[in-house]
């Protein structure tokens, strides 16, 4: 027979913890004799026992016979995998439980987290890239010297138009992963975590480009209809792998070239710095997409065909739109020229031609990394939106 002395502790002051602890070591049907000096113990004990499915015998000495409610509550409970590895398919019944937690049955299934297959969601690079992203968050207030540069008005206007274009692209890059975040089963914690940092990165990019645009008091530039049409097709892509491919491999991949271009040709240090900081983040977004899509096409032989089909669909949808607006293209030329001298404009023009060749080479290189042939990569790169993202 077990005994438990509660001392002067009452059931209304936490004595039930001691009772629970003692009873948890007994099998249903086994008894524990309870002693204690709290004045209310005599009637609180039976109340507590009744509410917890135990039997109370008034004694003396007062005795509790362990019921089976506590053990039955966990009947059928299973572990949500193990902390250190991911399963092939995470069931909805695990809900929001931590990976590796003991999941009591009967809770609500996780609704909406339909991206629950390892082949589709998981990437071996996710834990490392998540850690890198968490360590690499920078503070726009301190990472950049926001002293207004004092450029000639027309050069400043070219910078502002470029920023206006970048902001809406960053907004699309924020919206796309944010839309998928809640659909990814939380079992794949590092993937969810990485995408959360990606969303935060894009929010920062929107902020710093907005701040640079307004730094010298100029009104923002034009948001072209064709550019927005192109971005809308990204936001509308319903399939995770396709969205990741179009946004991160092709779009953000192209942006790596654009951000390099801005660093090299920026007429002022603030523009160069915001481009540099954004580029570090973008390189991580591209790496993640290449990592997880590389694994995806290895596991799913039809994966490459589906990615290509998504690219073709987007191209067809955009065929009647204008692509990159002339205002954006010309502002890049002026920005790189740094002046209206004909020779400088000629150099700026050449630099933008180089930029487009650099983007194309980058896209082809990444497509080859995903297992497309050189010929396929060349055809596919040409189908990518003229709006860059």
């Amino acid at each position, binding site marked *: 027979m077990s005994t438990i002395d509660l001392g002067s502790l009452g059931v*209304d002051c936490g004595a039930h913890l001691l009772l629970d602890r003692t009873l948890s070591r007994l099998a249903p049907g086994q008894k524990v004799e309870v002693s204690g000096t709290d004045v209310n113990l005599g009637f609180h004990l039976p109340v507590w026992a009744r509410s917890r499915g135990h039997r109370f015998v008034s004694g003396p000495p007062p005795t509790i016979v362990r019921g089976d409610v506590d053990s039955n509550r966990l009947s059928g409970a299973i572990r949500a995998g193990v902390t250190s590895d991911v399963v092939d398919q995470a069931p909805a019944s695990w809900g929001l439980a931590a990976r590796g937690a003991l999941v009591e049955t009967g809770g609500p299934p996780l609704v909406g987290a339909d991206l629950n297959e390892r082949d589709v969601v998981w990437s071996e690079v996710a834990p490392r890239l998540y850690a890198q992203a968490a360590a690499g968050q920078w503070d726009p207030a301190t990472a950049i010297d926001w002293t207004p540069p004092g450029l000639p008005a027309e050069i400043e206007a070219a910078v502002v138009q470029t920023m206006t274009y970048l902001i809406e692209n960053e907004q699309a890059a924020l919206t796309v992963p944010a839309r998928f975040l809640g659909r990814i089963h939380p079992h794949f914690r590092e993937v969810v975590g990485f995408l959360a940092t990606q969303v935060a990165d894009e929010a920062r990019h929107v902020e710093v480009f907005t701040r640079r645009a307004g730094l010298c008091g100029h009104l923002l530039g034009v948001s072209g209809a064709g550019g927005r049409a192109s971005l809308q097709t990204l936001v509308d892509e319903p399939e995770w792998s396709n969205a990741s491919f179009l946004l991160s491999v092709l779009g953000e991949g192209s942006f790596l070239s654009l951000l390099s271009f801005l660093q090299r040709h920026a007429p002022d240090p603030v523009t160069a710095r915001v481009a540099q900081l954004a580029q570090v983040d973008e390189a991580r977004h591209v790496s993640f997409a290449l990592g997880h899509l590389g694994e995806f096409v290895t596991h799913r032989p039809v994966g490459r065909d589906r990615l290509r089909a998504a690219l073709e669909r987007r191209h067809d949808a955009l065929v009647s739109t204008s692509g990159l607006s002339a205002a954006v293209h010309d502002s890049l030329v002026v920005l790189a020229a740094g002046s209206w001298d004909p020779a400088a404009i000629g150099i700026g023009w050449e630099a933008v031609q180089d930029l487009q060749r650099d983007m194309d080479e980058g896209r082809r290189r990444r497509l080859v990394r995903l297992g497309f042939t050189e010929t396929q990569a060349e055809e596919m790169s040409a189908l990518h939106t003229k709006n860059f993202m």
Partner: protein
Amino acid sequence: MSDTIVLGAVAYDPKVVTIWDGFRAWLRQRGCDMDYVLYSNYERQVEDLVARRLSVAWNSPLAWVRARRLDPSAQAVLMRDTDRDLTSVVVVRSDSPVNDVAELAGRVVGTGAIDSPQATLIPLDLMGELPISVRRFDVGIGLHGDHIGGERDAARALAAGEIDAACMIDANHLRFAAEGILPAGSTRVIAQTPLYDHCNMTALGGSSPALEQFTALLLGMDYADATARPLLDLEGLTRWVPGRTSGYEPLESAVDRAGFYDRKGEVTADEYRP
């Protein structure tokens, strides 16, 4: 009434819909065609039961007492494990000079609603003819104390020093401590009622295959079953047990002393307008 079990229950809280929707689905999946009807008070539920508009009524102990008086064939077919062997207590502040019930003479005793078995009728019966002044906290009249608002208000009044003693069911003494209304150590129990039983599932006379199936299914509900557990948790039991009628004597006596119902089951209490 064909094979459908029509169950009556009182809607003392919005969760009652969730509870009986859940039981209905659970029972129907197992071949028992149950539907339920909700009442705003127990008196009409009991009247419909004896008029045989219901197959079973999920009755408060007071509703059981009335049903039995209106129709002696009433039987308690089921109850919750948590309906058995309850008590009520009479509580004073710890610094009160009152040490037992007799010393409440001439003092103010707070109770729950007029029709609360556990916070009014049974504890007042304990005080017999003692000359006390009763201050009733009438919340949820007609709900037979299922709504514990009155009990809670009495406990608050006790803590505030407005009354000398308060009556409540034993479990609520713990609950009000947890809610911070009667912090541990702030009160002293001066009396406890005899053991009594609480709710039961009441049916009239005889049995039927449908009623037997209904009873057997509920008795078989297993806390280890994840489809049953949320319903059991919500209704506050760990298993259904067969009904027994041996635990209603304290309330029968209290009803007689208070003149709440007459021997035929007619409502005779003054000021009771459910």
